[in-house]
């Protein structure tokens, strides 16, 4: 009898644990985060393309513009996204191209089951004439700059 009760108790606890796990997966630790994509260059940045490699469980939920001539929402490569890669890029024909640290985009992610991290890789950067230029990329987590709106 005691053995039967113990088995029933174990089953109950097992189901409870499974349920808790599912609950957690569905909403308990889900998170939404944003990262700024910054390209640093010594000359005017006419075009750029960056791969932002998301961590486990991260899903891209939006691509936002950066600052100045790159304030319009950048484009992402749909075919690359099919393979789990986030490749974004843009160009500008503006006469006054920015240089130095340029925030070119902001990427938004849904993180299922906890906080993740991303790695940015510069794929290409060009000047006003389309010539390749030296540049580096940095991807920085956006800390709450808006405050709690509630």
């Amino acid at each position: 009898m005691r053995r039967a009760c113990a088995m029933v108790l174990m089953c109950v606890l097992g189901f409870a644990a499974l349920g808790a796990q599912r609950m957690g997966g569905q909403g308990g630790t889900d998170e939404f985060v944003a990262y700024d994509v910054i390209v640093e260059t010594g000359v005017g940045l006419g075009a750029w393309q960056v791969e932002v490699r998301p961590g486990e469980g991260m899903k891209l939920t939006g691509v936002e513009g950066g600052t100045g001539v790159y304030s319009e929402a950048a484009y992402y490569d749909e075919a690359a996204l099919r393979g789990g890669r986030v490749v974004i890029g843009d160009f500008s024909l503006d006469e006054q191209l920015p240089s130095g640290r340029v925030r070119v985009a902001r990427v938004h992610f849904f993180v299922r089951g906890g906080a993740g991290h991303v790695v940015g890789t510069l794929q290409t950067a060009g000047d006003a004439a389309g010539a390749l230029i030296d540049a580096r990329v940095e991807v920085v987590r956006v800390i709450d700059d808006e405050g709690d709106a509630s």
Partner: protein
Amino acid sequence: MRLDFCKVGVVAAVALAVCAAMVVVGCEGAGGRYGSGGLHQSIVPEGGNGDEYSRSTRDGNAARARGGDDLDLSWLGSGDELWVIERGESWEQHGRVDRDGVGGLRARAGRGDTRALPLDGVRVRADLVGFVGSVSVKQTFVNPWDDVIEAEYVFPLIDDAAVTGFVMEISGRRIRAVVREREEAAYIYEAAKRAGRRAALLTQERANVFAQRVANIGPRERVDIEITYFHTLRQDDGELEFVVPMVVAPRYKGGALARGGGVGGVWSIDVTIDAGAAVEGVRCLSHDVEIEELGGDRVGVRLADQGGDAWSRDFVLRYRVAGEGARGNMVVWEDREGAGYFALSIHPPTLDSESSVREPVEVVFVVDTSGSMEGKALRQAKRVVRGALDALGEGDAFRIVRFAERAERLGGGVIEYDGDSARRAVHELERYRARGGTEMLRGLDAALSIPHDLARRRVVVLVTDGLVGEEEKVVHAVEEGLGGARVIAVGIGDSPNRLLIERVARVGRGGSAYVGLADDARGVGSRVMGKVADASVTDVVIDWGGLGVADVLPSRVGDLYAGRSVVVTGRLEGGRSVDGETVWVRGRRSGGGRIDIPVRVDVRTDSPGRRVLGTLWARAAIMDLTERAIVTGRERYMREVEELALSYGLASARTAFVVADGVGRGRRGSPRRVEVPTRVERGEEWER
């Protein structure tokens, strides 16, 4: 289902209302213009929850319905009218109710709160280059409440719209949405909503109906949603046509009527036409517009009409591009290896009426006499048939089939055309009254099952507003029963179901035409008949020469009709550049002889070219696969749809756009849900 109505005075109504289920009142209200009666028919309820819909069928009139168990008539004013409607049989006895998300007039917000609605305005910006329309639709939502809301809005787009972009703008921040599998997108959206994140979701409910949800709009906050799409312009009677749908018409589906509705808010529409040649005869059939010459063969068109029921009908713009005779145009985008996409437009030759000899035809008119056709719509349908009869001649024959809830054939057999038989048919036609459901399948079955007189070319002319929910079955029935016939579909009303009309025309290898409530319907009928009977080029084949083409759509080009262009898209397999090469469109000319139309290949290597041509091909492929899935019932076609849509970043039945803001910590608590009301077709108004 039929309900009976009686018009009574207020006192009688109050007494009757105790046992009747619904009260309908005509009044002047914020939700639209309400006037005196004309109520002829009630509509089945949405889901057996005690509520019912009602409608008025006179132009501009409307009706409002309330549950009979909650009667407060204190708001009745002097001059208001009261209608009492007897409750009909339960919807459950009449088949299923459409629950597929087609929106409608839903002015609910919480518990009876019906303050100003959050759709503040819509701006449409279109660039019409060649035969491609590039359109941006910007919707502005403003939250008038003191708490956080979620807005839900259902709206129409043109049926072949390839939706490629969806951007949410808040406080100057523009965030581009991402295409994901539909379930995954919905999951992310719900998670964002729960987390208090501003988020938006765009789903395709039908090929031409989309639903949009915007979560966590703060008090007094404004959110702009911008949707961009490409589509090919339809050409008929030598005119290119650009349409902005504004109405989601209610659809009859298996004994029930699904909800419909049109868009709301303040609108602006700005169009630039750049056809690459002189543009002539620019005119808007539906609204008042301002037309401006912009120089260099470019023309600007701006909507001027904002009043009355301007938003209860589709915006229809037509224009003509200079150039005569048969011609073709093939635009190609290719990469360095020569692989890419193309779009070939074929403009058939104008008929030479003196030299062409027409074969005798047997025309089967299939006339929709269901309840939704009541009033002007049915009168226009009758005029179309009369006009078509005018165009028949000695040696021709005809039959007339009408359908509503059932189908009936006029007379016992084929009617030989002559003056007397035409007059008798017109007399019989005038006796038709509109009532009941829209069992289009029965009408088509009755028409297509008539034994074909092989001595004559058979043409089926379907005259309908197309307001059925079972488009797939209708298209399938046409494909299955077509045989050697051609089907031409004529859309009636200011907002017919263009998706169905075009699909039936395509599958039926015929054509389509549209007749608004104020159009010359008889003239259209006559022209349609002339066009169908006199296909200017038949047995069409495309000689691709040395071009390596693949996945060409449509896979089979039907007959070509004078004044109506056809667009063929496909992929190039690559290997070498095809710039400057020539393809040939070959066929048999009406009246005898062959025709060969040379088309020179024009290659583009710019990035927008790839985007536009690739997108147009992908959208055509998605529509083709969807139809195959419907016809065969095979899931694998829908999986291909999903793959294509994800790879090309397109909205589809299996994919959706989702965007969620990752900045900030999010709001607490659940948002209030607001369903944005939309208007319905002129001549009909619905409200829950």
